[in-house]
C-alpha cells in the first residue's frame, strides 16, 4: 500500500496547531513547496520534483512595531494564484501575504481592536483560495474576509466580509466557486464566493469544534475534535456517512482530488487513508493506516492529486514525514 520514505529535516519543529502543513506543487517550475508553522515563523522548503535539490528558508511573522513582543502564528498556507505562489500566514495580529519565491511581503491586514482597554483575543485562522481571484481568511469572531488578488502586483483589496459562523473559524476549503467554512462550535457553512458572495447552506454542529474540512465532488469531509469524521452533501447538507475515526482531536484532512482518496490525522498518532466513492449515495472505505509513534500529528497533505504520495507533520518534531505507494 504505502511505504514510509526518508523524511525531510525542517529547520524548526512543528507547532501544535491544526492544519499545520501546506504543500503546493508547481509543475511548470518543477518545484514542490512545503510550509509549516514553528512558533512565530514559517518553515518554508522548496524542493525540486525529484528531491535532489532542497532549499529551506524561514519567514518570520513581521510585527507592526518592534515593541509588541512575539506573535504566535496560527496557520500558514501556500496558495497558487495564476502564475505565482503566495504564502498566507495568520497570527494574533493579522493576516500577512508573501510572494513564496522572493519572500517579499505583498499584503498586511490588521486584526484586533487596539482601542480596547483590556487586551482582547484576536486571530486569523482558516485560509483558502477560491478560483484564481480570491483568498479567503477566517478570524476569531467567525467572520471570513474575502480578499481580491490581482494577477500580479500587490494591489490586494478586501472584497467582502462574510458573517454566518458564530464562533472562531477553524478551517476553510473550496471547490470551484464553492467555499466551506467550519468553526469552534462545529458549524459548517457552504458559501458561493465571487463578485457577490452568498451563504448557500448551514449545517449545525454537534458542539464539538470542527477542526478540519475538505471538499471534493460536492462532498464535504469534516473532521471534529471528538475524533469523528462526517461526509455531507455540499448542495443539500445531508449527512451521508459518519465515522468514529480517531481517538483524539482530528487535526487535518486532505483529499487527493483526482482519485477521491482522503487522509485524516489526529493527535492519537494515527493517520488513516480512506477511499471516498462519490455518487448519489456516496460510500467510504478504509484503505490504510499507520501509527507515527509518539508524535501528535498536526498536519497532512497529499503531494500529488493522484494520491500516490503524502506527507504528515507532528508537534515538537522537526521532520516532514513522507509516504508513497509501493
Amino acid at each position, binding site marked *: 500500500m504505502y511505504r514510509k520514505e526518508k523524511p525531510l529535516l525542517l529547520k524548526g519543529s512543528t507547532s501544535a496547531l491544526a492544519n499545520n502543513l501546506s504543500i503546493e506543487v508547481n509543475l511548470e517550475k518543477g518545484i514542490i513547496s512545503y510550509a509549516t508553522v514553528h512558533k512565530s515563523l514559517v518553515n518554508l522548503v522548496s524542493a525540486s520534483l525529484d528531491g535532489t535539490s532542497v532549499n529551506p528558508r524561514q519567514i518570520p511573522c513581521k510585527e507592526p512595531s518592534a515593541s509588541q513582543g*512575539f506573535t504566535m502564528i496560527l496557520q500558514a498556507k501556500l496558495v497558487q494564484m495564476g502564475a505565482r505562489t503566495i504564502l498566507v500566514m495568520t497570527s494574533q495580529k493579522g493576516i500577512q501575504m508573501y510572494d513564496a519565491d522572493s519572500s517579499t511581503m505583498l499584503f498586511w491586514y490588521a486584526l484586533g481592536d487596539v482601542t480596547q482597554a483590556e487586551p482582547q483575543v484576536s486571530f486569523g485562522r482558516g485560509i483558502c483560495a477560491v478560483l484564481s481571484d480570491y483568498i479567503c481568511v477566517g478570524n476569531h469572531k467567525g467572520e471570513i474576509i474575502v480578499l481580491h488578488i490581482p494577477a500580479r502586483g500587490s494591489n490586494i483589496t478586501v472584497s467582502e466580509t462574510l458573517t454566518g459562523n458564530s464562533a472562531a473559524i477553524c478551517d476553510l476549503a473550496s471547490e470551484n466557486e464553492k467555499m466551506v467554512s467550519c468553526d469552534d462550535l462545529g458549524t459548517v457553512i457552504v458559501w458561493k464566493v465571487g463578485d457577490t458572495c452568498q451563504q448557500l447552506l448551514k449545517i449545525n454542529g454537534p458542539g464539538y469544534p470542527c477542526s478540519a474540512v475538505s471538499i471534493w465532488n460536492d462532498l464535504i469531509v469534516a473532521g471534529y475534535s471528538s475524533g469523528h469524521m462526517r461526509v455531507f452533501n455540499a448542495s443539500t447538507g445531508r449527512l451521508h456517512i459518519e465515522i468514529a475515526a480517531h481517538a483524539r482531536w482530528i487535526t487535518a484532512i486532505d483529499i487527493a482530488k483526482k482519485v477521491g482518496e482522503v487522509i485524516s490525522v489526529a493527535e492519537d498518532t494515527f493517520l488513516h487513508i480512506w477511499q471516498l466513492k462519490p455518487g448519489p449515495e456516496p460510500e467510504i472505505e478504509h484503505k490504510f493506516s499507520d501509527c507515527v509513534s509518539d508524535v501528535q500529528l498536526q498536519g497532512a497533505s497529499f503531494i500529488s492529486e493522484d494520491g500516490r504520495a503524502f506527507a504528515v507533520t507532528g508537534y515538537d518534531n522537526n521532520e516532514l514525514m513522507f509516504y508513497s505507494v509501493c
Partner: protein
Amino acid sequence: MSLKTLPLLFINLGGEMMYILDQRLRAQNIPDEKAKKVMHDITSTMFNTRFMEELFKPQEIYSKKAMRTVFDRLAHASIMRLNAASMDKLYDLMTMAFKYQVSLALRPRDILLITLNHMDAIKQFVTDSPSIATQVDNVYRLFIHHYASLTLGEFMLIRQTLLNFFQDLRIRVSIFLKEKVQTCNGHFVLPTDGTIPWGTELPGAIRVYTPTGEQKKTMQFNCGGKWQHIKSEGSFDIRGDRGTPLGTNMYNVARPALETKVSGSHVVSASTAEGDSALAPNPLATAQLDLLSKLIGRNETKQGTPEFRLNLFNTDEEEEEAAIMQPMETAQARVIKIDASKQGESTELSRIMGELDVDETGDGEDQDLLDLMDSAN
C-alpha cells in the same frame, strides 16, 4: 496566544515545584518546623490575593525567561536557599512534568482537571494554616469563575499556547525514563491503548445514512489502537475526584533523588533561532514581576528564622559537578534583565537581588547540608 493561559501555567508549575520541594525537604531531613515554614511561605506568596488578581487578567503568557525569574523568586520566598545548579534542576523538573501533563491530556479541558489536582495537593500542604487555606480556596473560585464556561475551542487554544511554550524543551527526566513514559530523545511516549476522552466514541465504526437520516448500514475498520472508555469525567467542583492521575504528586512514593539529563536535542534546539518570546520581554510581565518581587520582599522582612540551603542532587559534589557542566546558554539565562532596570525603584527588590547571590547566611547552627548529613551519619 490565548489570553487565559497564564494562571494555568503559573499554578501548575507552582504545584510541581511544591511536590519536588516537599520530597527534597523530607529527603534531606530538614526539621519539620522549617520544612513546614517553607511550604507555607511559598504557598502564601504564590496565592497572594493581589498577585492572583493580576494573574487572572486577560494577558499573554510571560516569556520563558520571565517565567523562570518568577520561580527563582518564588523558590526563595522563604528561609530556603537554592544554588544555581539546584534551581536549574528544579525548574527543569517542573517544566517537563507540566509539559508531560499537557501533552498527555486526553482533551484540552483536562488541563483544568490537572490544575485542580495541583490545587488539591497544595491545599493539603497547608491544612494547618487556615489563612493560607483560605487563600487557596479563593483561587479555586477564581478558576471556576474564569474557566467553567470556556468552550472546547478556547481550551484548545489554551492547550496550543501551552504546548507552544514548551516546544523544543526535551530534557530527559529519570523518573519518566524509569517509568518508560519518556524516550531517550526526550519525547514522551504516547500510548495507543489507553482511554479516549470523556464523551467521545471508540474509533472503529463507519455508519452510512439514508436520505431520511436513518442508519443504512454500519461497517467496522481497524483503527490501529486498543482504546477504551474513561470511567468518569472528573469533577470540576472545589472538592471531588478529578478522574485523572495527571497533575497528582508523582514523588509521593519514596524514590531516589531526581535526575535530569540534558539531551543533545535540547542543546541544539536552545541555540536555533526560533523567533522566541525570550527575545522580547513583555512589558506587562515586567510589571507583574515587579509586583511579585515586592510581595516576596514584604514576606521576607518578617522572617526571623535562619535560612538553610536545599540541594536537588544526591550530594553536594553532584551539585557542584552539575554547576560546572552547565552550558553557557543556561548560565546566561540567569542574568535577570527585567529586575535590574528597576533596581533604583525598589529597595526591597535590590535586597532580594543581593540575597540571590548569597548562598549561605546561616548563623552557625546546623543549617549547612553537609553538617546535616554528618549528623545523620
